[in-house]
Every structure is written in structure tokens, then in C-alpha cells.
């Protein structure tokens, strides 16, 4: 149980109504903030079969920036990014009609954590 677990549980419960139908997972979802400047490869997996769509699109966006298309494919699948995953990079899962199904953001934790503190776990 990490220190952030209660907060994540609260977020998850807040999200229940809107997020139950589609799954979007990032691995890793949390990076050390001393990741080399180019960024990390992120494995992105999604499953929107329960959301009533056959095909999905994924877009990426940086904080405050516009969305750009990244990939598209069947309702369930996975794909690796290039080495450009970094803090704040956000993936948006969309149905074929363009409705947003899920949204996930890459976070970072400080490399120099205070003594005794643990880095957040992967989600």
C-alpha cells in the first residue's frame, strides 16, 4: 500500500461511472523524472469491447497542447510508443465515432526522493 493508494482509490471510485466501459493502461505509467531527455518507451494497452465499438483511435497530447493522432485499430489491442514518453504525455482512447472512452497521463516521481520515502508504484 503506497502513500498515494487512498487518493488513487478515491479517483478510481470517482471514475467508476464514466470509466468502467473501456480500459486504457500504460506501462510504465510513472517514470523517474531523470529519464533521459528523449523519453521512455511506453507500452499502451486498451480494451473497449464493452463500450460498444469495433474500432478505436488513440490520440496523444502534451499538457496544454493540441491532440495528435497516434494509432488506430480494433477495440482491444496494444502498442509501444517510441522513446518519447515523458511527464504529462496523455493518451486519449476514442471510439470510431470520436467519443472519448478513456484518458491516461504519464506521471513522474523525483529521482532524489526524500530519505525514507518510497517512489510511487506502477499503475
Amino acid at each position, binding site marked *: 500500500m503506497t502513500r*498515494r493508494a*487512498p*487518493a*488513487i482509490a*478515491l*479517483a*478510481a471510485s*470517482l*471514475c467508476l461511472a464514466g470509466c468502467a466501459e473501456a480500459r486504457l493502461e500504460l506501462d510504465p505509467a510513472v517514470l523517474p*523524472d531523470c529519464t533521459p531527455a528523449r523519453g521512455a518507451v511506453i507500452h499502451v494497452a486498451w480494451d473497449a469491447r464493452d463500450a460498444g465499438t469495433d474500432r478505436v483511435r488513440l490520440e496523444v*497530447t502534451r*499538457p*496544454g*497542447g493540441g*491532440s495528435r493522432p497516434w494509432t488506430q485499430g480494433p477495440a482491444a489491442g496494444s502498442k509501444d510508443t517510441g522513446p518519447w514518453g515523458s*511527464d*504529462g504525455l*496523455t493518451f486519449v482512447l476514442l471510439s470510431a465515432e470520436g467519443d472519448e472512452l478513456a*484518458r*491516461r*497521463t504519464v*506521471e*513522474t516521481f*523525483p529521482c532524489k526522493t*526524500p530519505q525514507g520515502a518510497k517512489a510511487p508504484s506502477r499503475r
Partner: protein
Amino acid sequence: MIRGRALPPLPRAALVLLGAAAFALFAWGMDRAMLGVAREAYFGARPILANALPGLLAALLLTVLTRRPGFSLLVAAGVQALVYRIGTLKLQVLGDPIGLQDLHFLTHLTPDAFSLLGGYVESPGLLIAAVLAGGTVAGLAWWVERPAFRAFRTMHLALAVVAIAATWSLVAARQPWEGLYDKATLRPSKFRAMPGVLHAGLMSSLVHSHIQNARTLDTLDEAALARLLDAVPVRTTPATAERPDIVVVLSESLFDPRRMRGMADLPDIIPNVRAAIAAGHGGEMKAPAYGGGTVRTEFEVLTGMPMDAFPEAQFPYVTLVRERIPSLVSLVERHGYRTLAIHGNAGSFWNRRNAYQAMGFDRFVTKDEFPADAARDGRWLSDAAMTDLVLAALREPGDQPRFVVALSMENHGPYRKVGGEDAAEFDAIQVPAQLSEAEAGTLRAYLYHARHADAQLGRLMDEVRTRGRPTVVLFFGDHLPALPKVYEKLGFVDGRTGPRQLVPWVLWRSDRTTGAAGYAGERRAWMLPSLLLQQAGLRDDPYFALAADVAAELETAAGPRRRVLTNGLNAAAVARINGSLPDRLAAHGKREKAP
């Protein structure tokens, strides 16, 4: 409608706490939506509470005034929503989150500020309707809610004391705010506001910036300054007897359109600038601003101090204004110059009037002092009208040399045809065919005014050439215009992004046919005043001499040497503005070190 009966104290307190929690979650949701990140990104009790506290404090102050906590929370939520809406618009237009400097507008709302900012509102009717609806809801909430406590009794006084103490400690950047908004939580970047906003929310980032601003002039890197003074000479020379007139023109949003793909084969928009640079009278430079933020480039050119020296001061005239700001103005005044600034907008904009007073300008001519018949072109006063005033100032009788700074306005955004332009000339401007109609219209509006800026440089040089007195002219673009959709469609010739593009500068002396040596290559805006002073024969100021030496060394320095130079100059700039530089130079025996 029936006004509700007052609840007993405990349920009421619970309701207020619930309202405060809802406010905090609401603000966090707005924050994440503004950034476009997932709602759970950096979700946690501390970031959410810290982000909500400024709004909750505002609600507390309002509660003290009205004794209606529900009404106060509702108004605070409305204002918070408005802040995030403006933040979203700013991100879309400028690619930058709201900064502390933007709050300057809230305390200096003038008809000119409304006019300029109103130009960016695409649906004014919708905005007015939203404001009216919000006002109506707030009015109803006021009417429905009964006062929660008696006036001037224990509860009222206790809340007043807490609210005033919290506000005072926030304004003074004291604890507990300093501890709550620390670097470990925000992990801010020295160069960009976005990381701090992402990690802890916009409001937390603003409070952190405010606390850092309060500390800006106290955080001098003594070791970096000492290393620089050990490494670089400070070569001052006595000023020459001849004191040429000096004209500095900041050309709003001017850049070379041929930096964009598809522009090379179209008629040249800036032939005068291009010819001057080709003849060795100028080059290109990196401006410390993009899409807006004129004052950052303006500050670097007028003071020779890099904005990197003040990473928390995004807009220097809001943050760094003190009683005196050492600058080109104070330097030339020591040499007997008469100094004048001209700007076709309100003097209060970006706090310029106070900043110019601190720099020491004799006179500041703003929009209201322009002649009543001064020409407008499009939305703003024309560059031709501004040049008229510059030339008139040079013609004024008197033996004193002149130092004139003119900030153009004609090519300020938003870039739309508004009427008042020369329709035939406007429609004849060619743009690349792949642009949509809307994008073409935007680019055409920009190019139309950029062409005028260049033409006025040509006119200024022609007129100055015929004068009996030598005159030095420094002309430069302050940043790229905010044309995000055009850049996205066309791209840049060098493949770099918009913020990495350069802007042109011209430095020309009327009695010399050749440019000074070493003009080739990329410059920074803070390097221009040293070059200007060199052309004018005024190299007796130790700071500008130091900046000139650093600039010269940076052309070849790399690695650790480069860091010594840049970090050292940043430290010197902090020492310069907080007044301790002369003593530090003297301590190093470099007050008047000759070459």
C-alpha cells in the same frame, strides 16, 4: 421563492466543509481539463488542497464581508471557472499557462486593456450572457442564504482575524504558504511554467511563483559571479566626445516570413531589413518570447540583462520594477542625452509607465499624446504615425543628443482584417496556396502590417541619412506573432519549432557605410545594447562592458566555460538590479579595468 430557515451551527458547518471539499475537487477538475490530462493525473489530497486554498481564502474573505459562506463559495467557484477558461484560451493562443503577470490586468483594467483582450474573444455575446447568468445565480444565492452568524460577534471577529492573517502571510510570502508550496511538491522548471502546473495545479503554481518573486532579488549566486569575474575582463573605455543621436525601434511581432515554408518564392515582405542585414548591419537573434511577451525582449534590450537571470519573473515590468532600474536610459542620461519613449498604446499596459519612470526616461508619449489626426492602420495606430513622432523628436531644436525608443503597435494581434486597411494592398498580399481561407486571411493580415514595419525602417534610414548629425538606429523584432495554425500548416524551413525561430535585428549608423565586425551568427536580445553602445562610442559602463565580453566569448565557448559565462552573467544581472554590482566589481578590482 421562500428563503430557507437557518440551519443549526453544526449541520451548517458540515455543509460548509462539504462545500469547500466540492470546491477543491471542482477546481482540480477544471485544472486537469485545462491541461487536457487525465483527471487522476497527480491526484492527491495535498495537490488538490494546495490548488484550492487561494480560492478558499477568497471565499473566506467574502464570507467575512457578507456572512454568507454558501454565496461566497459560489462566487469563488465562478471566478475560479473564469480563470481556468481564460487559462485555456491563453494556452490555445500562446501555448503558455496563465502566469502571475496576467493578474496585472485585474488590477489595471482600462478601456485599452478591454479593447486589446476583447479582440481575442470569439463570441462576445456568449461571454456577456454567461456573465449575466452567473450574476443572476449569485444574486439568488445571496437572497436565499441567511447570514450564518451575527455581525461583529465572536465568530465574525475570529474569521476576520484568520482571513486577514492568511491574506497578509500570502501577500508577504511567509509561512505557512512557503512550506505548503515548496519545490519538492511542485518540481517546477526554471525555464517553463508547465511542469509546476502539471504537478500541483495552476493555482499552486501561481502561489509558488509569487513566493519565488518575493525572493528573486535576494537569490544572488555569489559563486557564479565570482567565477565569471575571475574568467572575464571588464573592458570599459572612456566615451568618445561625439555623441550621436540614438533611435531604438522595437517592431511588434516582426520576423522574416521566409522562415516559413512556401514563402521564398513570394514577394519579399521585409526588403529593407534583408538588405541591411546583407550589408553587414545586423543579423538574427533569439528573443526571450514567443507569440507574445514583448516586454521580455524589450527589457533585455533596454537593460542588457538576460531574462534567464530572473526565471520566476515572466514579465519583468510587473515583477522587477524598483525605484531605479539600471538601463541604457540611465547610462545615456549620464552623457547628457535627452530621452524619450513612444508607444501607441496605454502607458499603463504591462506597467510600462512605472517601469520607464524607474529607468529614467524624460518623457513617455503614449496613445493619448499622439496627435489627434495620427493615422491608424487596421486596429492600431500605424507605424507611419509612430515614425512621424520619432523624426519630429530628432528635429526638435537643441544641442543635446537624443535617445528615442519607439515601440510599434500596428502589427499587434489579433490578425484579422478589421476595416481601415488599404483594401487593394491587403488583397494583393500573396500567401501559400495550401492555407485554408481562414489561415490565409490571418497570415495576410500579419504580412500586410509587417510590410509597413519594414517600409517605415526604410523611411527612417532615408530621413536620418540627410540629417547633419550622426545617428545610430537599432531596429528589431520582439518575437514571432501568434499564428499557430499557419505554422502548423506551413512548417519552418529549418525544421525547428516556432519557439526556436529567430527574429531579425538591424544596427546601423548613418555616417558609416560598413557594419561593425562580429555581427554574423545568432545573437540574444540582451547582447544588442552592448553592440549599440559600441556603435555610439559609449563603452564606459562596467555592466554593459561585462555583457559585451561575455557575448564575445560565448561565440566560441562550449561546455563548462559556457556555463561559467551564462550563469555568471545571470548572477551579475541580479547584482545589477539589486544594486550590489558596483561593490562586487570593486572587490574584484574591475571597476575601471582598461584593456
